[in-house]
């Protein structure tokens, strides 16, 4: 019998993970700070073609790509003459569980089945839980979803309660917890007790599953419009969506698209705070995940995360909660598409960025998600009102996350605020070098840092100098 204190369990973490993912992560480690990322990605043993087949056999993928003509026209009406790029939307809500997460789950659950696991476990409060539960149902595996759902008063986020319902509808067991990072502790205990597969969001299987999304966008664009999109905007939280989509575009030979990450700005709200947990109206797609998972991807539930957004991101912007709610309404009323709010984060950014680009340019918003009771603009604003958040119409730039939500009084007030990517890259390097700052880095380590930050070695050396300077 093992001891089950938080510390005791954490010390068994690597051993539990090896059994639960079927991957020995240690073999990808380089000497020093780096590891063999592409080697780890190849370790899935599945080609893009294999993955496409796996997904198609369980109803995943081949989702429609719509041109949002009315939203494009609205953007053009607000933009200077000649500006207003065409906006397209990949309708990922058409997947079996209602979001692109089905792509990630399809590969993980298929793989778990191949390896002979009896069941799968995932730690997620979001669409991914529904996706794993749905795929487990298809493949006849048992499924446990672990959610962070309630504050200490037992008040649950309506969006998360809806996800629990959906998981249970697919025959999964749902464990609901109060706020706190020890969700991971519960998760490890369950892995150890059941011996199930860890269908983590961050394994190579999960990220390989998203590559088909980028690949499909490139193919659909090529066949319908005989070109590559100029920009692909991705709602960014844990980084997997952006990483997988960008990799898929590259595998399709699409080198042109500028890859933009977009997150809802929740600055000032602490993600592990019991009191602040229910002050937010977005449970994903926000900076509370987006920024820490960019600067420290290996904070996830596997030893090395396959989601590494800084490797692929060309720019990163934030939008506010009220702006996303406005665009969610606009999508329904102008395009006849009622889709969940969080997935419309990238749509909101696209609406603004389109106005800065020429009319002949194209932007792809690469996902949508389902909507329903609890997971809806009115449900989330009602919850916010009950929590004392001030909801009003005005200029969204005055919004303070956790205190107010401002619905823009005019769509010309919708903007996307750039995040300084160089600053994020610096934070990434700073964290990594916390204990090593006197050591001279080897060539291989520098190359690793260059790949991790999408910079040249020369730029990395300059960043390193800056980091050392601030340390002095």
């Amino acid at each position, binding site marked *: 019998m093992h001891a089950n*204190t*938080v510390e005791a369990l954490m010390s068994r973490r690597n051993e539990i993970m090896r059994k639960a993912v079927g991957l020995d992560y240690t073999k990808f480690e380089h000497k020093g700070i780096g590891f063999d990322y592409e080697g780890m990605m190849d370790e899935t043993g599945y080609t893009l073609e294999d993955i496409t087949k796996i997904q198609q056999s369980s109803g995943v993928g081949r989702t429609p790509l719509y041109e949002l003509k*009315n939203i494009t*026209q*609205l953007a053009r*009406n607000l933009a200077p003459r000649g500006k207003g790029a065409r906006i397209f939307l990949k309708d990922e809500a058409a997947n079996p569980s209602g979001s692109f997460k089905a792509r990630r789950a399809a590969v993980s659950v298929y793989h778990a089945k191949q390896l002979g696991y009896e*069941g799968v476990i995932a730690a997620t409060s979001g669409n991914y839980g529904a996706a794993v539960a749905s795929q487990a149902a298809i493949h006849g595996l*048992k*499924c*446990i979803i672990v959610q962070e*759902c*309630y504050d*200490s008063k*037992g008040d649950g986020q*309506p969006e998360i*309660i*809806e996800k629990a*319902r959906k998981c*249970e509808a697919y025959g*999964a*067991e*749902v*464990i*609901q*917890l*109060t706020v*706190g*990072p*020890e969700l991971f*502790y*519960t998760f490890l205990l369950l892995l150890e007790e*059941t011996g199930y597969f860890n269908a983590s969001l961050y394994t190579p299987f999960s990220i390989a599953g998203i590559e088909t999304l980028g690949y499909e966008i490139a193919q659909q664009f090529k066949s319908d419009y005989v070109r590559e999109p100029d920009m692909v905007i991705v709602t960014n939280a844990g980084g997997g969506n952006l990483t997988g989509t960008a990799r898929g575009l590259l595998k399709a030979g699409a080198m042109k698209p500028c890859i933009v990450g977009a997150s809802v700005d929740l600055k000032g709200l*602490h993600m*592990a*705070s*019991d*009191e602040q947990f229910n002050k937010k109206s977005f449970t994903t797609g926000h900076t509370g995940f987006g920024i820490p998972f960019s600067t420290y991807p290996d904070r996830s539930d596997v030893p090395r995360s396959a989601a590494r957004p800084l490797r692929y991101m060309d720019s990163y912007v934030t939008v506010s909660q009220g702006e996303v709610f*406005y665009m969610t*309404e*606009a999508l329904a*009323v*102008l395009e006849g598409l009622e889709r969940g709010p969080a997935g419309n984060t990238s749509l909101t950014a696209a609406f603004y960025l389109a106005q800065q680009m020429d009319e002949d340019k194209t932007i792809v918003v690469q996902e949508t998600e389902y909507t329903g*009771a*609890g997971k*809806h*603009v*009115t*449900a*989330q*604003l*009602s919850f916010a*009102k009950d929590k004392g958040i001030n*909801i*009003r*119409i*005005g200029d969204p730039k005055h919004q303070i996350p956790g205190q107010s939500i401002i*619905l823009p*009084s*005019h*769509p010309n007030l919708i903007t996307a605020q750039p995040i300084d990517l160089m600053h994020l890259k610096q934070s990434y390097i700073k964290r990594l070098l916390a204990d090593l700052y006197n050591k001279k880095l080897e060539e291989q380590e520098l190359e690793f840092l260059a790949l991790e930050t999408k910079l040249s070695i020369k730029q990395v050396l300059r960043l390193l100098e800056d980091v050392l300077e601030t340390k002095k």
Partner: protein
Amino acid sequence: MLNTAYKGDYVRIHKIILNPDERAEHLPEDTKKVPLEMWVKGFLMHDQAAIGDSVRIETYIGRQVEGRLVEIHPSYQHTYGYHIPELSFIGRQCRALLKGGEDLAREYSRSFDV
């Protein structure tokens, strides 16, 4: 509300996973003060139990879990919430702007400005 559950009834149980003093380090103060709690649903394994009793259940996938009985025949009560007056102008404003009706579009939101 039902107070007694019988064998095989679908119920919800509650359990303390970590007391405040067992919680991880580096938590915000407000989180550190409260326990880590858990809820899960399943089928009652005892002949009979009342709300508040310590019970054992079998979950949907067949796992056995112990905890305190808190709900019998648990249901989902989440909804679309209230009517939100601050949202009503958006659709009409967008449609007006699409037709070039800037004045009308401003009128739609102005009526809500405080």
